[in-house]
Protein backbone atom coordinates (compact mmCIF):
# COMPACT_ATOMS: atom_id res chain seq x y z
CA UNK A 1 0.00 0.00 0.00
CA UNK A 2 1.63 3.21 -1.11
CA UNK A 3 1.00 6.53 0.57
CA UNK A 4 -0.13 9.61 -1.38
CA UNK A 5 3.34 11.08 -0.88
CA UNK A 6 4.98 7.98 -2.37
CA UNK A 7 2.54 8.10 -5.27
CA UNK A 8 3.39 11.71 -5.99
CA UNK A 9 7.12 10.92 -5.81
CA UNK A 10 6.63 8.07 -8.26
CA UNK A 11 4.66 10.31 -10.61
CA UNK A 12 7.38 12.94 -10.36
CA UNK A 13 10.04 10.41 -11.34
CA UNK A 14 7.90 9.25 -14.27
CA UNK A 15 7.45 12.81 -15.50
CA UNK A 16 11.16 13.59 -15.18
CA UNK A 17 12.02 10.49 -17.16
CA UNK A 18 9.40 11.18 -19.84
CA UNK A 19 10.60 14.78 -20.11
CA UNK A 20 14.23 13.73 -20.65
CA UNK A 21 13.46 11.04 -23.20
CA UNK A 22 10.31 12.11 -25.07
CA UNK A 23 9.41 15.60 -23.87
CA UNK A 24 6.17 16.52 -22.10
CA UNK A 25 2.83 17.87 -23.25
CA UNK A 26 1.66 21.24 -21.92
CA UNK A 27 -0.56 19.47 -19.36
CA UNK A 28 2.25 17.20 -18.18
CA UNK A 29 4.62 20.15 -17.89
CA UNK A 30 2.10 21.96 -15.68
CA UNK A 31 1.74 18.80 -13.58
CA UNK A 32 5.53 18.54 -13.20
CA UNK A 33 5.87 22.12 -11.96
CA UNK A 34 3.02 21.56 -9.54
CA UNK A 35 4.52 18.36 -8.13
CA UNK A 36 8.15 19.34 -7.88
CA UNK A 37 9.36 20.68 -4.55
CA UNK A 38 11.98 23.43 -4.25
CA UNK A 39 15.48 22.43 -5.22
CA UNK A 40 14.42 19.89 -7.80
CA UNK A 41 16.25 21.65 -10.62
CA UNK A 42 19.21 19.39 -9.92
CA UNK A 43 17.00 16.36 -10.30
CA UNK A 44 15.77 17.59 -13.69
CA UNK A 45 19.36 18.31 -14.77
CA UNK A 46 20.47 14.84 -13.69
CA UNK A 47 17.78 13.11 -15.72
CA UNK A 48 18.47 15.29 -18.78
CA UNK A 49 22.19 14.58 -18.40
CA UNK A 50 21.54 10.85 -18.15
CA UNK A 51 19.60 10.96 -21.43
CA UNK A 52 22.35 13.02 -23.09
CA UNK A 53 25.06 10.63 -21.90
CA UNK A 54 22.96 7.75 -23.17
CA UNK A 55 22.66 9.51 -26.54
CA UNK A 56 26.46 9.88 -26.76
CA UNK A 57 27.00 6.30 -25.65
CA UNK A 58 24.76 5.03 -28.42
CA UNK A 59 26.89 6.84 -30.99
CA UNK A 60 26.50 9.98 -33.06
CA UNK A 61 27.72 10.32 -36.62
CA UNK A 62 29.85 13.43 -36.95
CA UNK A 63 31.16 12.87 -40.47
CA UNK A 64 29.34 15.89 -41.87
CA UNK A 65 30.60 19.23 -40.63
CA UNK A 66 28.32 22.13 -39.83
CA UNK A 67 27.72 23.92 -43.17
CA UNK A 68 30.18 26.81 -43.50
CA UNK A 69 27.57 29.49 -44.17
CA UNK A 70 25.57 28.44 -41.12
CA UNK A 71 28.69 28.26 -38.98
CA UNK A 72 29.76 31.74 -40.06
CA UNK A 73 26.30 33.15 -39.36
CA UNK A 74 26.15 31.64 -35.87
CA UNK A 75 29.68 32.82 -35.09
CA UNK A 76 29.00 36.35 -36.31
CA UNK A 77 25.75 36.60 -34.31
CA UNK A 78 27.47 35.36 -31.16
CA UNK A 79 30.37 37.78 -31.50
CA UNK A 80 28.01 40.66 -32.19
CA UNK A 81 26.12 39.77 -29.01
CA UNK A 82 29.43 39.71 -27.13
CA UNK A 83 30.17 43.20 -28.41
CA UNK A 84 32.90 42.13 -30.85
CA UNK A 85 33.04 42.85 -34.55
CA UNK A 86 32.92 39.59 -36.52
CA UNK A 87 36.05 39.06 -38.66
Amino acid sequence: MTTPWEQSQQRLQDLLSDRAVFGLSVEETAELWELQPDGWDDEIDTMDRTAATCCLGLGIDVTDPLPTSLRNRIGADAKRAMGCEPQ
Partner: protein
Amino acid sequence: MLRRRKWLFALLYRSTKLFDSHEIPILCQTILQRVAAGDSSAVDDCLAQYGALVWSLARRHSPNYSDAEDAVQEAFLGIWQGAARFDPEKGSETTFITTIVRRRLIDRHRKRGRQLDTASLENQPVATRENHTEQVAISEEATMVRQRMASLRPAERRVLELAISEGMSHSEIAESTSMPLGTVKTHARRGMIRLREMLEADSATRLTEAET
Protein backbone atom coordinates in the same frame (compact mmCIF):
# COMPACT_ATOMS: atom_id res chain seq x y z
CA MET B 1 43.24 13.42 -10.47
CA LEU B 2 40.97 16.12 -9.05
CA ARG B 3 43.57 17.01 -6.44
CA ARG B 4 46.26 17.17 -9.13
CA ARG B 5 44.13 19.51 -11.23
CA LYS B 6 43.47 21.78 -8.25
CA TRP B 7 47.19 21.79 -7.47
CA LEU B 8 47.95 22.73 -11.07
CA PHE B 9 45.39 25.54 -10.91
CA ALA B 10 46.94 26.81 -7.69
CA LEU B 11 50.42 26.71 -9.19
CA LEU B 12 49.31 28.61 -12.27
CA TYR B 13 47.40 31.05 -10.11
CA ARG B 14 50.58 31.96 -8.31
CA SER B 15 52.89 31.92 -11.29
CA THR B 16 50.97 33.71 -14.02
CA LYS B 17 48.75 36.70 -14.48
CA LEU B 18 46.49 34.96 -16.93
CA PHE B 19 43.26 35.08 -14.98
CA ASP B 20 39.72 36.05 -15.78
CA SER B 21 37.14 37.48 -13.45
CA HIS B 22 36.30 34.02 -12.09
CA GLU B 23 39.95 33.53 -11.04
CA ILE B 24 40.38 30.40 -13.13
CA PRO B 25 43.63 30.59 -15.08
CA ILE B 26 42.74 31.16 -18.72
CA LEU B 27 45.12 28.40 -19.83
CA CYS B 28 43.07 25.92 -17.79
CA GLN B 29 39.64 27.04 -18.93
CA THR B 30 37.42 24.86 -21.03
CA ILE B 31 35.86 26.27 -24.19
CA LEU B 32 32.57 26.92 -22.39
CA GLN B 33 34.27 28.68 -19.50
CA ARG B 34 36.01 30.91 -22.04
CA VAL B 35 32.66 31.61 -23.75
CA ALA B 36 31.17 32.50 -20.37
CA ALA B 37 34.12 34.82 -19.71
CA GLY B 38 33.39 36.67 -22.97
CA ASP B 39 36.37 35.36 -24.97
CA SER B 40 35.15 35.73 -28.57
CA SER B 41 37.77 33.29 -29.93
CA ALA B 42 36.07 30.60 -27.84
CA VAL B 43 33.00 30.94 -30.08
CA ASP B 44 35.06 29.78 -33.08
CA ASP B 45 36.63 27.00 -31.01
CA CYS B 46 33.21 25.85 -29.84
CA LEU B 47 31.81 25.82 -33.38
CA ALA B 48 34.89 23.91 -34.61
CA GLN B 49 34.81 21.41 -31.77
CA TYR B 50 31.07 20.80 -31.43
CA GLY B 51 29.53 22.04 -34.70
CA ALA B 52 29.32 18.59 -36.30
CA LEU B 53 27.84 17.08 -33.13
CA VAL B 54 25.11 19.73 -32.91
CA TRP B 55 24.44 19.51 -36.65
CA SER B 56 24.13 15.73 -36.48
CA LEU B 57 21.68 15.88 -33.56
CA ALA B 58 19.65 18.62 -35.27
CA ARG B 59 19.32 16.67 -38.53
CA ARG B 60 18.28 13.59 -36.64
CA HIS B 61 15.41 15.42 -34.93
CA SER B 62 14.32 17.80 -37.69
CA PRO B 63 11.77 17.21 -40.44
CA ASN B 64 13.77 19.03 -43.10
CA TYR B 65 17.03 20.80 -43.86
CA SER B 66 15.75 24.29 -43.20
CA ASP B 67 14.31 23.28 -39.84
CA ALA B 68 17.64 21.64 -38.94
CA GLU B 69 19.42 24.94 -39.69
CA ASP B 70 17.01 26.85 -37.44
CA ALA B 71 17.41 24.21 -34.75
CA VAL B 72 21.20 24.54 -34.83
CA GLN B 73 21.02 28.32 -34.45
CA GLU B 74 18.63 27.96 -31.54
CA ALA B 75 20.80 25.25 -29.98
CA PHE B 76 23.95 27.38 -30.12
CA LEU B 77 22.06 30.29 -28.60
CA GLY B 78 21.20 27.93 -25.75
CA ILE B 79 24.87 26.94 -25.48
CA TRP B 80 26.06 30.56 -25.26
CA GLN B 81 23.37 31.35 -22.69
CA GLY B 82 24.07 28.22 -20.65
CA ALA B 83 27.89 28.30 -20.82
CA ALA B 84 28.26 29.85 -17.37
CA ARG B 85 26.37 26.93 -15.82
CA PHE B 86 28.89 24.38 -17.09
CA ASP B 87 30.56 22.59 -14.20
CA PRO B 88 33.42 20.27 -15.26
CA GLU B 89 33.05 18.36 -12.01
CA LYS B 90 29.53 17.26 -13.00
CA GLY B 91 30.40 15.94 -16.44
CA SER B 92 32.20 16.58 -19.70
CA GLU B 93 31.67 19.56 -21.97
CA THR B 94 30.40 17.19 -24.69
CA THR B 95 27.70 15.85 -22.36
CA PHE B 96 26.72 19.36 -21.21
CA ILE B 97 26.35 20.54 -24.81
CA THR B 98 24.42 17.41 -25.81
CA THR B 99 22.09 17.98 -22.84
CA ILE B 100 21.31 21.56 -23.93
CA VAL B 101 20.90 20.62 -27.58
CA ARG B 102 18.62 17.63 -26.88
CA ARG B 103 16.44 19.76 -24.61
CA ARG B 104 16.01 22.39 -27.33
CA LEU B 105 15.32 19.78 -30.01
CA ILE B 106 12.74 17.93 -27.91
CA ASP B 107 10.99 21.21 -27.11
CA ARG B 108 10.98 22.18 -30.80
CA HIS B 109 9.62 18.78 -31.75
CA ARG B 110 6.86 19.07 -29.15
CA LYS B 111 5.97 22.59 -30.29
CA ARG B 112 5.86 21.50 -33.88
CA GLY B 113 3.43 18.81 -32.82
CA ARG B 114 4.09 16.55 -35.72
CA GLN B 115 6.09 13.42 -36.28
CA LEU B 116 9.60 13.29 -37.63
CA ASP B 117 9.51 13.15 -41.39
CA THR B 118 12.93 12.01 -42.53
CA ALA B 119 11.76 11.65 -46.13
CA SER B 120 12.30 15.36 -46.70
CA LEU B 121 15.96 14.91 -45.80
CA GLU B 122 16.46 12.49 -48.67
CA ASN B 123 18.68 14.81 -50.68
CA GLN B 124 20.80 15.74 -47.70
CA PRO B 125 23.56 13.73 -46.04
CA VAL B 126 21.60 11.92 -43.37
CA ALA B 127 23.21 10.17 -40.43
CA THR B 128 22.68 6.43 -40.32
CA ARG B 129 23.73 4.12 -37.56
CA GLU B 130 25.38 1.78 -40.08
CA ASN B 131 27.52 4.57 -41.48
CA HIS B 132 29.44 5.59 -38.41
CA THR B 133 32.87 5.96 -39.92
CA GLU B 134 33.77 8.73 -37.52
CA GLN B 135 31.94 9.14 -34.27
CA VAL B 136 32.09 11.92 -31.77
CA ALA B 137 34.93 11.46 -29.33
CA ILE B 138 33.22 9.36 -26.73
CA SER B 139 33.70 10.73 -23.29
CA GLU B 140 34.45 8.58 -20.30
CA GLU B 141 30.83 9.00 -19.19
CA ALA B 142 29.53 7.79 -22.54
CA THR B 143 31.71 4.69 -22.44
CA MET B 144 30.44 4.04 -18.95
CA VAL B 145 26.79 4.47 -19.96
CA ARG B 146 27.24 2.00 -22.80
CA GLN B 147 28.44 -0.60 -20.33
CA ARG B 148 25.61 0.26 -17.97
CA MET B 149 23.01 0.07 -20.73
CA ALA B 150 24.14 -3.48 -21.39
CA SER B 151 22.98 -4.35 -17.88
CA LEU B 152 19.41 -3.09 -18.46
CA ARG B 153 16.65 -5.51 -19.35
CA PRO B 154 16.62 -6.03 -23.16
CA ALA B 155 13.19 -4.40 -23.57
CA GLU B 156 14.22 -1.36 -21.50
CA ARG B 157 17.41 -0.99 -23.53
CA ARG B 158 15.57 -1.34 -26.85
CA VAL B 159 12.98 1.30 -25.96
CA LEU B 160 15.67 3.74 -24.84
CA GLU B 161 17.72 3.12 -27.99
CA LEU B 162 14.73 3.79 -30.22
CA ALA B 163 13.69 6.89 -28.29
CA ILE B 164 17.07 8.48 -27.71
CA SER B 165 19.10 7.37 -30.69
CA GLU B 166 16.37 7.21 -33.33
CA GLY B 167 14.22 10.02 -31.91
CA MET B 168 11.05 7.89 -31.96
CA SER B 169 7.94 8.85 -29.97
CA HIS B 170 6.06 6.55 -27.55
CA SER B 171 3.53 5.64 -30.21
CA GLU B 172 6.14 5.05 -32.93
CA ILE B 173 8.01 2.66 -30.62
CA ALA B 174 4.78 0.89 -29.71
CA GLU B 175 4.00 0.44 -33.39
CA SER B 176 7.52 -0.65 -34.30
CA THR B 177 7.91 -3.16 -31.44
CA SER B 178 4.25 -4.25 -31.07
CA MET B 179 4.40 -3.37 -27.36
CA PRO B 180 1.38 -1.69 -25.74
CA LEU B 181 1.88 2.07 -25.30
CA GLY B 182 1.82 1.80 -21.50
CA THR B 183 4.54 -0.86 -21.58
CA VAL B 184 6.75 1.38 -23.72
CA LYS B 185 6.41 4.18 -21.17
CA THR B 186 7.13 1.83 -18.28
CA HIS B 187 10.26 0.40 -19.93
CA ALA B 188 11.57 3.87 -20.73
CA ARG B 189 10.98 5.12 -17.19
CA ARG B 190 12.45 2.09 -15.45
CA GLY B 191 15.44 2.08 -17.77
CA MET B 192 16.13 5.77 -17.22
CA ILE B 193 15.80 5.57 -13.45
CA ARG B 194 18.10 2.54 -13.29
CA LEU B 195 20.64 4.21 -15.56
CA ARG B 196 20.62 7.38 -13.50
CA GLU B 197 21.17 5.41 -10.30
CA MET B 198 24.06 3.46 -11.83
CA LEU B 199 25.70 6.59 -13.25
CA GLU B 200 25.36 8.44 -9.95
CA ALA B 201 26.97 5.51 -8.15
CA ASP B 202 29.82 5.48 -10.71
CA SER B 203 30.28 9.20 -10.32
CA ALA B 204 30.40 8.95 -6.51
CA THR B 205 33.00 6.18 -6.78
CA ARG B 206 35.16 8.25 -9.14
CA LEU B 207 34.95 11.25 -6.80
CA THR B 208 35.99 9.14 -3.81
CA GLU B 209 38.89 7.66 -5.76
CA ALA B 210 40.01 11.14 -6.85
CA GLU B 211 40.02 12.43 -3.30
CA THR B 212 42.02 9.53 -1.84
